[in-house]
């Protein structure tokens, strides 16, 4: 007996992109749709400035930030690990091992360096849709995208985190 895959169906996996996405929604029966903070990350990125860090998920101090990657970012660093998941496009990541940590160990979220990092090149990553990259604690990183791309960042609410829930979420 064969299990699975025997039949008439052919399967197409549907991913979204900045230029091609469909949005679902909340059908409220006995609730307020705002309680679900429903948004679409491609829609958020499409309406964001390059490298703006817009929250689409928040759980206490932890956040999911959507970043429209377009051109070359500033150098940033963070006291804790962050993780960048490329949801659309191609993103290059340059990493530098800093000579010394720049942010206090209890600082949440990343900060801009305001210039070139002082340290040794640690490496480079070229990530495409579906690829997840570690942005290691206390390293400096710079991102580049020749064409608009979309990143979902796992991090902690920081000084450059942007909240605009009423603009991005379903409210009725």
């Amino acid at each position: 007996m064969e299990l699975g895959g025997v039949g008439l169906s052919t399967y197409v996996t549907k991913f979204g992109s900045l230029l091609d996405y469909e949005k679902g929604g909340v059908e409220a029966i006995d609730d307020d749709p705002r309680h679900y903070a429903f948004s679409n990350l491609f829609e958020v990125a499409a309406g964001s400035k390059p490298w703006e860090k817009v929250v689409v998920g928040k759980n206490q101090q932890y956040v999911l930030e959507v970043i429209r990657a377009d051109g070359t970012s500033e150098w940033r660093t963070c006291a804790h690990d962050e993780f960048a998941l490329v949801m659309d496009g191609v993103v290059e990541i340059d990493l530098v091992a800093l000579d010394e940590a720049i942010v206090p160990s209890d600082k949440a979220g990343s900060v801009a360096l305001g210039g070139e990092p002082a340290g040794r090149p640690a490496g480079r990553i070229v990530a495409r849709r579906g690829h997840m990259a570690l942005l290691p604690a206390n390293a400096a990183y710079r991102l580049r995208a020749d064409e608009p791309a979309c990143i979902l960042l796992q991090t902690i609410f920081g000084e450059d985190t942007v909240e605009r829930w009423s603009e991005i979420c379903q409210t009725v």
Partner: protein
Amino acid sequence: MTDTAMTEVLAGEPNHHGYRTFQLGEFAFERDEYFAYVRWPTGTHTMSVDAFLRAAQRDVAWNFFYGTVNFDNVVGTVNHYGNVDLFAGSFNEAYRKAELDHLENFPHEQILGTFRSMLDDWTNEGFDPFAAPEETRTAWGDKSGNNTEAITRRRVTASRMVGVPGDEPIRTDETHPVNRMFADVDQSQPEIYAEPGFEDQVCAFNLFGYLSRSDVTWNPSIVSVCKDSLYCPTTEEYILPIIHGNDRVEWFVQLSDQIEWEVADKVTGKLRARVTMKAGDVAAMPADIRHQGYSPKRSMLLVWENGSAELPELIATGKAPTYPVDI
């Protein structure tokens, strides 16, 4: 974690279908060819045995997860992280009104040991409770072998990120062939150019490719960790075998395809909303609801959890809201 093999499991001799009957406090569990029967002092409940085993499999694999794992609208567990409630009718308005509900609390190891033994005894050769219905044989019939290997799969729990040296490995054809519904998913890995000495810092992997090789459904596993922020992606097909009652806000990011969520009140079970999520959609599940998902094609779902041990108490005492943000 305590070795559950050391805990006492109360099991009777095999019945005439070959299955043992299990006792846990005043609860009794029995199965025959088609059904699982749960009995308690004020009532009994019958479930299709495939649904029961699929639910029990998640409960065991997740160590009772976050909050409530409803096997259906009558029977389930509530995790208190160290001890666990087993209940019948406690989150069902009709049962409570009729005073037929029943709840007992057990040490984590005791209920885990009993559930593991029951799952092992009741799962026949060829039936995989983790698999999509199209990808497994059936649960029916008299006792016929076992499938211990399938039901004791190790749950992936990365400590930093999958693919980091010394952490959880990426999946390959040798260990995890691509699922039939994800044959079109790109399998290329990121280009990584690490300078000597920085191989454990310059790391990346193909998460979508990794998920396309998952051999289980509805089984969140941890792929990246930012303190208590846990990325727990999973692949979904058919129906979530449990109805999850949250004890904290939980977030979903639909990475591919589509899932429909039926959302009901955690305590009463009354419907509150239906949430349709397509690729790129992000939604929170409030802390006072129960939810069950329907995925017509195998899909990729990022479940995002805050694993803080303090959250359930903060929410239960009203110090943290049940919904994610003020809009």
